[in-house]
């Protein structure tokens, strides 16, 4: 008998056949049991099948929720396979629980379709099938080699994603090598490499890989959020997915939210965003407020930044929008329905900053102080911050605003007491807060609390010894109260800190002159002369330097000598001054003003004014008048004087005479610009403008002046509009930008007219002088030139009410009212007229001539020194402003 097939082989074959049938039927446990026996016969052949049976069993257990049993199966598998293979198996099976959420054909079908070479499929189709396989996240077992190969490639993608989630970068690279270049899963390889680069800091490589993904594929869609984040991190400004309302953009929005860990709130954010872009700001805020617990917040997390957005965006909104937004918070505050302290803090801050200019002082104060309190509670105490905060509040309360009512005086501070209190508090919290100190000085000065101001300044010189501004201010205060030594000492210290500030030598000269004056008054002329000599290093020879020009100091010295010491010396000094002055008229005006200052408290004319009048009666030049106006302006600025009626009248009356002399456009411009806001200058300036227009009727600037000088109460809007438009066209043609800007502004003002001027303003600042040589015989009652203005109709009723109130008011109230009016600069004559009109009494007669006073009679003037040689005529220039008009 030949050797027969061993009986064992037949049994093994039968067992193998049975086992394969069980595997194909998914009867994993039975198949495993058979395989355990078969393994002993041929380990190499049956081991893979045993592993497959165990995997199938584990998957079956996991699907049934039998985790513990599945873990036991894995523990057994760990004895059969190496660890990395076990990990791969785990990865493949970890998706078992999620397969219920995946809608799509079974991956096996897709694999089979991919492997079927008999059917020609397009690249997108193959890609779609591959995406289905990957997104199923199920291991696929396949018998056919082609299908098995594809299944292994899909498995590699899953394993790579698993390793990526655990930051096992080298494992990721190793696993991905199993997927060849031509694999239908190759785009997934690119995706995984791209997102690995995202997290390993290889931003450029990541962007390049992710951008190269085939459009429409699942990885390409998933890559959009990563690409947006990469572009942002690179500092660029990619079109934010939030910028568009397209569905794909919303998908990216949601995707990015998931990536940043806000996936569970992406719906809320997207809804809030949609509201905001639709202009529903309050609804947007409420959507987030109602659905997000940690919002609003003061932290640096995204709820904190989002809070910052909502509470800062109103600053850029249109008025109607932010008013609505603020009203929402005002309501929450009023009903005490704020969500948390962060909201309380931010709401008060927003309300205070937005309403700082318009809120009533007590409301502003309450809101801002509430903000500071809550800020301290949220972020901790910070005295520097609190000091800045109170300083800001003090500054806002010290802002001046126009008074209400008909009898409106000059603008007043919003809350002077509050301003002082807040600024003092600011200083207490931070004694180094210089801005608060300076502001408090300003407030004291405005309230005329000079002693408090000076006391504060003295403290400041000690506290801020190296601050030039402080020393200069302190010096000003000292000179004002005649503490000259101290003041000049402060100026010396200031000069050491800044040798280039021109204000310091100016104040030094002013201080020395004031000190010398005091010394002259004390009959110490030698001392005074020594003091004036100290000013020498600071003097300039500039003719237009009225503060420390040599000629001005000579005038001052000369007048002091004349009044208190040596008249001969005085005349010599005055003669030198006359020689150095830019114009005789300038010297005379300066001398008059200084002499008048020296003769205080008496006001009135001086001999110099008479001489000025005589000089200007001749043939004055417009340039001279410009000098005079410049000098007057500076004098008023420095000395705070408003009552310059006599001087203005002299200058005003000279203008028509100057029109008969040649002048340049620049000289005319200076006179007009400096005089246009002065009382009663309108008529002579109109004559001047008329002359300019005769030379050039289309001159835009001159036409603007003409319009401006015609006064607001006589304007005809339609006519003015046409004229302004014509001026705009001409200014554009001539490229006259200043005139163009001005004309456009005036056109805008026609639509929004400025508030009515105070009828008791400069037009009525003083009585008309009865000068027999005044040839302006026309009635000055137009343009507010008479005792009472021509009131516009809308003010008549209010004026009538005022008169009625004055008629019935008791005397004590009228006395108080008179004092108020005097403080506001209303002349007594005007007030008396009102009272008389109210009570039906005869109106008082306007005063005539200068007020009577009796100062020491000045010595008679010597004949004037010969005039200095007039300046040589300027060479011709092409600048039209410099051309003579005649």
């Amino acid at each position, binding site marked *: 008998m030949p050797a027969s097939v061993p009986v064992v082989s037949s049994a093994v074959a039968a067992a193998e056949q049975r086992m394969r049938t069980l595997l194909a039927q998914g009867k994993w446990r039975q198949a495993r049991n058979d395989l355990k026996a078969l393994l002993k016969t041929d380990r190499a052949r049956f081991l893979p099948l045993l592993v497959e049976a165990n995997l199938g069993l584990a998957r079956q257990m996991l699907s049934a929720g039998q985790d513990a049993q599945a873990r036991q199966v894995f523990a057994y598998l760990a004895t059969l396979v190496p660890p990395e293979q076990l990990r791969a198996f785990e*990865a493949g099976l970890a998706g078992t629980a*999620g397969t219920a*959420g995946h809608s799509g054909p079974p991956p096996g079908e897709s694999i089979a379709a991919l492997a079927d070479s008999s059917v020609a499929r397009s690249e997108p189709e193959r890609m779609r099938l591959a*995406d289905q396989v*990957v*997104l199923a*996240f199920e291991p696929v077992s396949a018998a056919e080699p082609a299908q098995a190969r594809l299944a292994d490639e899909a498995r590699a993608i899953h394993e790579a994603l698993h390793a990526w*989630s*655990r*930051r096992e970068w080298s494992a990721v690279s190793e696993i991905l090598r199993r997927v060849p270049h031509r694999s239908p899963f190759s785009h997934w390889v690119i995706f995984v490499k791209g*997102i690995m680069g995202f*997290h390993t*800091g290889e931003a450029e490589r990541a962007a390049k890989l992710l951008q190269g993904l085939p459009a429409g594929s*699942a*990885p390409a869609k*998933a890559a*959009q959020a990563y690409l*947006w984040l990469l572009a*942002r*991190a*690179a*500092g660029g*400004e990619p079109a*934010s*997915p939030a910028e568009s309302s397209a569905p*794909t953009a919303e*998908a990216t*929005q*949601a*995707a*990015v*939210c*998931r*990536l*940043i860990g*806000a996936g569970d709130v992406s719906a809320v*954010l997207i809804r*809030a*965003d949609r509201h905001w*872009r639709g202009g529903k700001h309050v609804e*947007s805020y409420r959507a987030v407020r109602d659905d997000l617990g940690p919002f609003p917040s003061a932290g*640096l997390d*995204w709820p*904190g*930044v*989002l809070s*910052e*957005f*909502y509470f*800062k*965006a109103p*600053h*850029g909104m249109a008025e109607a929008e932010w008013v609505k937004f603020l009203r929402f918070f005002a309501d929450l505050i009023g009903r005490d329905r704020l969500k948390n302290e962060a909201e309380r803090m931010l709401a008060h801050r927003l309300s205070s900053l937005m309403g700082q200019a318009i809120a009533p002082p007590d409301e502003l104060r309450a809101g801002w102080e509430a903000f500071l309190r809550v*800020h301290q509670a949220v*972020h901790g105490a910070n005295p*520097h*911050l609190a000091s*800045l*905060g109170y300083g*800001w509040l003090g500054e806002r309360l010290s802002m001046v605003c126009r008074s209400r009512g008909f009898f409106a005086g000059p603008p007043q501070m919003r809350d002077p007491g509050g301003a002082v209190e807040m600024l003092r508090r600011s200083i207490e919290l931070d004694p180094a807060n210089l801005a608060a100190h300076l502001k408090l000085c300003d407030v004291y000065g405005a309230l005329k609390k000079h002693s408090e101001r000076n006391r504060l300044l003295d403290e400041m010189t000690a506290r801020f010894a190296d601050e030039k501004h402080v020393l200069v201010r302190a010096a000003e205060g000292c000179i004002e109260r005649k503490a000259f030594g101290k003041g000049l000492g402060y100026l010396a210290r200031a000069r050491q800190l800044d040798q280039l500030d021109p204000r310091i030598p100016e104040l030094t000269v002013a201080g020395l002159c004031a000190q010398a004056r005091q010394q002259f008054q004390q009959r110490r002329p030698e001392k005074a002369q020594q003091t004036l000599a100290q000013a020498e290093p600071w003097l300039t020879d500039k003719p237009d330097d009225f503060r420390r020009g040599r000629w001005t100091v000579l005038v001052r010295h000369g007048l002091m000598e004349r009044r208190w010491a040596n008249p001969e010396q005085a005349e010599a000094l005055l003669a030198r001054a006359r020689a150095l002055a830019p114009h005789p008229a300038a010297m005379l005006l300066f001398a008059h003003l200084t002499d008048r200052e020296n003769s205080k408290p008496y006001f009135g004319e001086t001999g110099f004014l008479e001489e000025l009048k005589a000089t200007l009666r001749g043939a004055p030049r417009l340039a001279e008048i410009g000098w005079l106006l410049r000098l007057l302006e500076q004098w008023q600025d420095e000395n705070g004087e408003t009552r310059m009626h006599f001087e203005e009248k002299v200058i005003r009356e000279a203008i028509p005479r100057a029109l008969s002399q040649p002048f340049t456009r620049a000289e005319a411009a200076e006179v007009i610009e400096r005089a246009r806001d002065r009382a009663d200058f309108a008529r002579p300036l109109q004559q001047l403008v008329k002359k300019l227009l005769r030379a050039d009727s289309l001159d835009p600037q001159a036409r603007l002046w003409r319009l401006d000088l015609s006064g607001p109460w006589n304007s005809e809007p339609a006519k003015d509009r046409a004229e302004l438009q014509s001026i705009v066209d001409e200014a554009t043609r001539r490229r006259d930008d200043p005139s163009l800007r001005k004309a456009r502004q005036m056109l805008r003002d026609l639509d929004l007219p400025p508030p009515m001027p105070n009828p008791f303003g400069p037009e009525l600042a003083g009585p008309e002088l009865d000068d027999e040589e005044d040839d302006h015989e026309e009635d000055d009652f137009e343009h507010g030139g008479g005792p009472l203005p021509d009131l516009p109709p809308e003010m008549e009723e209010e004026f009538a009410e005022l008169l009625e109130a004055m008629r019935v008011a008791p005397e004590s109230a009228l006395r108080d009212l008179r004092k108020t009016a005097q403080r506001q600069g209303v002349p007594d004559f005007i007030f008396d007229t009102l009272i008389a009109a109210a009570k039906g009494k005869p109106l008082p007669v306007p005063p005539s001539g200068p007020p009577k006073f009796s100062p020491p009679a000045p010595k008679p003037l010597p004949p004037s020194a010969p005039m200095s040689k007039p300046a040589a005529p300027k060479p011709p220039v092409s600048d039209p402003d410099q051309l003579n008009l005649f």
Partner: protein
Amino acid sequence: MNPYLVLGVPRDAVDARIRRAFLDAVKQSPPETHPERFKAIAGAYEKIKDEPSRCRYDLFDTDCPGNSPLDVVLRHAALTAPLAPLGFEAMKDYLRACAKT
């Protein structure tokens, strides 16, 4: 954007730390190669470089950090780096959700 986030420093950072963060940021994004980013970094530094600046920022700053709520959250995400990789399950959900769009 919030200057603390731009420079990557906490609210209680001191001057030296803020300056260091500023210099590091400038090194990473020099003006020649990243002009916009540099501008943002420089602007952030100006706002919080010392205590008075930080106080003024807290009290008075009104620069809005974005154009819309979502824009602000996304900008914040782009600044606060690095993002950690999603967990495997989260990544699965993410991929499936993106694929549905």
